[in-house]
């Protein structure tokens, strides 16, 4: 990988960089984010560091971001406010906050502060290069894998983490794929040395791919398999309970069905990937029959059954707003305005990206498109912050700027959904994130090549 080989040539390159960046000597270095656009001038040591993308240490002293406009999501907008966080947790939000001794006070006057964006459905950490199979950990063998958990395969070195983070995506819900029951999804923060450190919540949902109704016989067969799977798991739970209560003889452990017990106990929702009208309708009746907590993932036709979703309190994770309708007669903006239609109907929803880890950085644009096509701007923002955290049950940790939650937030030049906005600095659990990512690294490196050529003329 080029990242590693570059380290060896770093010295020579950095000499050149130093030469070029001499003119930057007089510039302020303390606030890296205070520069226009991307002309953040890197010192040679920064470039070297950039190559390494070293995770930040844990927060060791209080930080107060003072004077900015704070978009709390949960508690309105605070002008000229302060966010204070200690040991990775927000301790105070508001105006006239008392700043503890020894706090690092950062003046963010003229800036805006937002909670980190959350991608409610992604393959971050499990997907590196699409057509290189050995870099993918998505599809386990067989159709029914309720026990597989994504965090144990989460590669913290993935290039895509930094790229998405630079665009404000600070939390990912990573998910396996394929089969009928793909496995569990888990929420991770986009900073840390290992998945263990990064994990926010394991098992945020059990992913089910609803069978395709295209062919009626195949659909019948697929649904039969789905029902059989849940029947078997439920029977297992009953048998184990009976054993535990001494009412039945020994029943050996089944790893798959054991992992589904939280689903039957209502602790873990079933996230059903369903786009077609029939799939969504049938998933609703199925979840009622089975007594499960259902979340619809995809939800292309969800607006057609909105009242059922509202009545049954079933949330939708909308994937791909930035896409076109699947039927040629549908209006050209049929997908752009799906979130607005759901919102108007009273459906609880979140917006997720298009699942590819490489494109998680597009999440703000997905929500932005919804805002262009009828969704209230604040709702659009909520759909990639607090709503996904609430829907998937980790809003105690992230999703809004509120005392007691993780200090997972960012300083920006404006609304993070707007293209012209720059994410200047992110904090994840109070850790000040190194804002260099693979894309910027390549820019810096080859900008240096351009400079060298210009000089040798």
């Amino acid at each position, binding site marked *: 990988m080029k990242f590693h080989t570059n380290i060896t040539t770093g010295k020579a390159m950095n000499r050149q960089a130093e030469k070029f960046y001499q003119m930057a000597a007089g510039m302020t270095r303390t606030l890296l984010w205070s520069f226009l656009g991307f002309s953040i001038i890197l010192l040679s040591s920064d470039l070297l560091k950039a190559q390494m993308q070293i995770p930040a240490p844990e927060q060791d002293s209080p930080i107060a971001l003072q004077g900015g406009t704070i978009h709390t999501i949960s508690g309105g907008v605070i002008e000229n406010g302060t966010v204070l966080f200690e040991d990775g947790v927000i301790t105070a939000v508001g105006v006239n906050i008392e700043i503890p001794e020894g706090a690092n006070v950062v003046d963010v006057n003229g800036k805006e502060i937002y909670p980190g964006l959350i991608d409610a459905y992604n393959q971050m950490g499990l997907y590196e290069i699409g057509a290189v199979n050995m870099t993918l950990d998505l599809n386990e063998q067989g159709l029914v894998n309720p026990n597989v958990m994504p965090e144990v395969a989460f590669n913290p070195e993935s290039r895509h983490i930094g*790229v998405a983070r630079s665009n404000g995506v600070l939390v990912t819900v990573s998910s396996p794929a394929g089969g009928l029951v793909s496995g569990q999804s888990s929420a991770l923060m986009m900073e840390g040395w290992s998945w263990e450190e990064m994990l926010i919540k394991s098992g945020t949902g059990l992913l089910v791919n609803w069978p395709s109704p295209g062919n009626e016989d195949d659909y019948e067969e697929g649904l039969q398999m789905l029902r059989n799977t849940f029947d078997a798991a439920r029977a297992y739970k009953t048998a184990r309970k009976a054993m535990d209560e001494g009412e039945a003889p020994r029943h050996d452990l089944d790893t798959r069905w054991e992992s589904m017990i939280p689903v039957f106990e209502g602790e873990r929702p079933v996230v059903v990937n369903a786009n077609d009208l029939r799939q969504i309708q049938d998933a609703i009746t199925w979840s009622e029959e089975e007594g499960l907590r259902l979340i619809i993932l995809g939800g292309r036709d969800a607006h057609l059954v909105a009242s059922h979703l509202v009545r049954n309190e079933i949330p939708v994770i909308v994937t791909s707003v930035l896409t076109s309708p699947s039927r040629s007669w549908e209006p050209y903006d049929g997908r752009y305005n799906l979130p607005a239609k759901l919102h108007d109907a009273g459906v609880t929803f979140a917006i997720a990206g298009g699942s590819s880890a*490489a494109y998680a950085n*597009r999440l703000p644009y997905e929500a*932005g498109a919804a805002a262009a096509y009828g969704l209230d701007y604040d709702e659009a923002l909520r759909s990639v912050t607090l709503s996904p955290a609430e829907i998937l049950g980790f809003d105690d940790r992230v999703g809004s700027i509120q005392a007691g939650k993780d200090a997972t937030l960012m300083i920006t030049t404006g609304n993070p959904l707007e293209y012209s906005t720059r994410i200047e600095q992110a904090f994840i659990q109070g850790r000040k994130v190194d804002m260099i990512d693979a*894309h910027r690294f390549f820019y810096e490196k080859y900008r240096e090549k351009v400079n060298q050529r210009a000089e040798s003329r």
Partner: protein
Amino acid sequence: MISNLNISFQDMTKRNDKSKPVFKTGVNPYLFLLAFCFLFAGPLAAQQTAQTDGMKDNTPSVHALTGATVVTAPGQAISNATLVIRDGVIEAVGRNVNIPADARVWEMNGKTIYPGFIDTYSNAGMQDPQIELERGDLSWNPQLRAQLRAVSEYSPDEDGSENLRSQGFTTAMSVPPIGIFRGETAVFSLNAKPVTERVVQPSVAQSVSLGRSFELGFGYPNSAMGIIALIRQTLYDADWHLRAHQAYRTNPEGLERPESNAALAALESTVQGEQPMLFEARNEEEILRSLRIADEFGLDPWIRGSGHEYQILDILSEKNVPLILPLAFPDAPDVESPESALNQNLSTLRHWYFAPLNPAKLDDAGISFSFSTAGLDNTSQFLANLRKAVKHGLDSETALAALTTRPASLLGIEATHGSLQAGKAANLVVAEGDLFESEARILDVWVDGDRFQVNSPTEVDMSGEWEITSAGGNIDGTLNLNETRPGRYAGTVTIDGEEIDIASSSSRDQARRFRVDFPGEELGYDGMVRLTASLSGDELIGWAEIHGVGRFDWSGQRVSGPEEDEIRQVNVTPRDLDIALLRPSMEYGRTAVPEEPRAVLVRNATIWTMGPQGVLDGADLLVRDGLIEEVGFDLRAPRNAVVIDAEGKHVTPGLIDAHLHSGVSGVNEVGNAIVPEVRLGDVLHINNIWMYRQLAGGLTTAHVMHGSANPIGGQNQHIKMRWGAISDDLKFEGAPRTVKFALGENVKRVGTDRYPETRMGTREIMADRFRMARDYQARWQEWEQNREGIPPRKDLRMEALVDILNEDILVQSHSYRQDEILMLMRLAEEFDFRIKAFHHGVEAYKVAPELAEHGAGAVVWSDWGAFKIEAYDNTVYNARLLHEAGVKTSLHSDNSQIAARMNWEAAKMVRAGMDPEDALSLVTINTAELLGIDDKVGSLEPGKDGDFVIWNGDPLSTLTKAEQTWIDGRKYFDLEEDAALRDAVEHERSELIQLILKEQS
């Protein structure tokens, strides 16, 4: 009539005995079967070379058909007429015709006689074509089979003629069925004689298809555009073949002998315009493509259509070429459940609706056509579909003309075929009544004076009441029968006052046999009482069997019935919805391209000119006669100008996508590695909802590109998004030619046996072809100097390569890695030409200085990457760094959906740190420059095309959408019109779905 039966059977066997010696050794079961339909065979009056073996057949072949209504030609009917046939030819027809003394007289009161139908595109005799040709001077390409002649390939075994006769056809043009150049058609008489006596016209037209036959292999060409390229090359080759052989024959000494190629030789008279070229066009676009080829080569085109012709009435009416129509109608789309209806798009629903209306629409537009059985799953659907077409508005005289006089004159057989006149071939259809406006059955078809029975006129119908008497009196009583379906009955038998339901009963037409079973319990017998009988007129001569009683004779006498069958009326649900013809024939289609106002003035907008004027606030844009006249302040509105108040809105040039693949029939010609002769412009199609959606996103121009399967792919096509125009009119006038190159993974992985398989080989094969092109050019230059000997062959592939080397075709190369980008620049420099732009260029930023130095542009994605290994080093700063390094840079979509939001693609570059105007240039003026069309589009400057977009805000904001999209000073998209169209689409879909449900109920 029944009395004829015994004669004909005998005659038939004798005649075949004579022509088929094999028959002597035993009964050939196939011919035996054939004999049933071939009820009467006259002697062979024509001169024959075949020697008579066995007994000479001299059965008289003089017939007088009397009392029928004879439709001698469309619109000309003679009632109570007599038609005299002698030796296969009509001797006389009319009301006062004397019946010759030697004629067999056929009473035909109440019947209608039509001229025999002519199938203008048939597979008669072509069912089992030779697949692999192995002998002779064959063409290098197995799809080139022009040397095959239907007249030589006709296989009389199971040739389909019986099915054709059952639909009234007596003559057919058979078309060789496989390959691209398929061979020469011939007209056959659908009689049952040896092929030598069926041939009416041995040489009619050369047949060509715009599709290829997979049974002939998967090599080059395997795309729609490759097929057209091969057709084009073959036509040039046929011309060359002719001239080369002429030159060689004139003075062969010292000359290298030119190739002798049967297929090319067979095409000589076609390329000289002397023999028609019959194009098989499987949709309306293929008709347009065929007409373009015909125009290009001065051919005499005939078109076999597909049923979609109602979509191009204007073109067909203008071109006036012979048109052959199939009568195959699509099944109703699946709307069984509301969910399945949800998934039916309007183009499918509309075609279901319009297909049966197609002939009437053409006729109404004054377009002449002939009918054929082509495209039918089963020939026996023909008459039913014909009647549907008539019921849906086709004039029945036109229908008859399209089956008789028109094809006869098209095929050059009008002197002998197409009407019932003295001297013409005795080809006729005898029907119960009006064949076109009722469900009248065809009774007989006469071909060359031979009668073939199609349906029996004396079909047994036992319906009615019968009185039964038996020898022992066991079953004396009455029998009441109702025909449930032909030859099957329900009813009762009443004996001794007991009315008993019969268990089963049937009759046979030709054997005249009848059978009935009924339970005997009520009469005191065990089990079934079983009666059979032979029918003679109204009498039954029967015997019966009763379990436990025995067998005995019985007789039956008809008391009443059957009732005369009425000829059924054609029962078709009317298609009388108020649905306009649209172009394209789908959702959001138009009845016409938008009007062009004399002038358009957009006032008070923020105008991003993308030219020297920069961004102007509160400015006006004036477009006159489709061109930009001025951008400035307080412009005066010309008279009759459309004035748009755009206060608070932004105006930009129409967006341009440098790399798109939608709206074409296939994008890759993978058959060969180097294929610059193929052209995307040959295969544009308009049935493309993406175009409408892209317009809705402000896109006005696109560069439609060949795929990336070839180191040197095909020629691309610049288009404007003129939604509502025909495909030809989408082409961007005056745009330079460009070609697609491709490097890296995609060209390597096409196949295991296609060169190249490495990036190294990619360079080598390109270099090799460039050298070939140089040699080709040199050879032509030498020829031009002395013009002696055999002329060089015009090779379109080489010519395209020469044009590439001369920069007459601009190179747009797919690329990912820096090494391959560098390689191609150096290779081009070695051959002294420049690469215009590298597309995708995921690693272009790594060689930005080299690109700038070479003068190549970069056309990149905003943020695609990591989908394969060569895309792993992507960066969203690619465009920015290239721009900073002085490389002319553009964005592209390479994706139909993303092409609908190129403004947002540009906006991503603002987040990457680019200045907003620079960012917008990536989808406007820079793109235009790299595509060589910046003299016409890309900026709002006087003299350029009136292509602009009105946005409801900053075009680079996430909150902005396009409100209006204008091209050439015409408004192609309007958000308000779109809202109305949505309702119209919904309404039309709903109406069509209801009509299907009505028709199915």
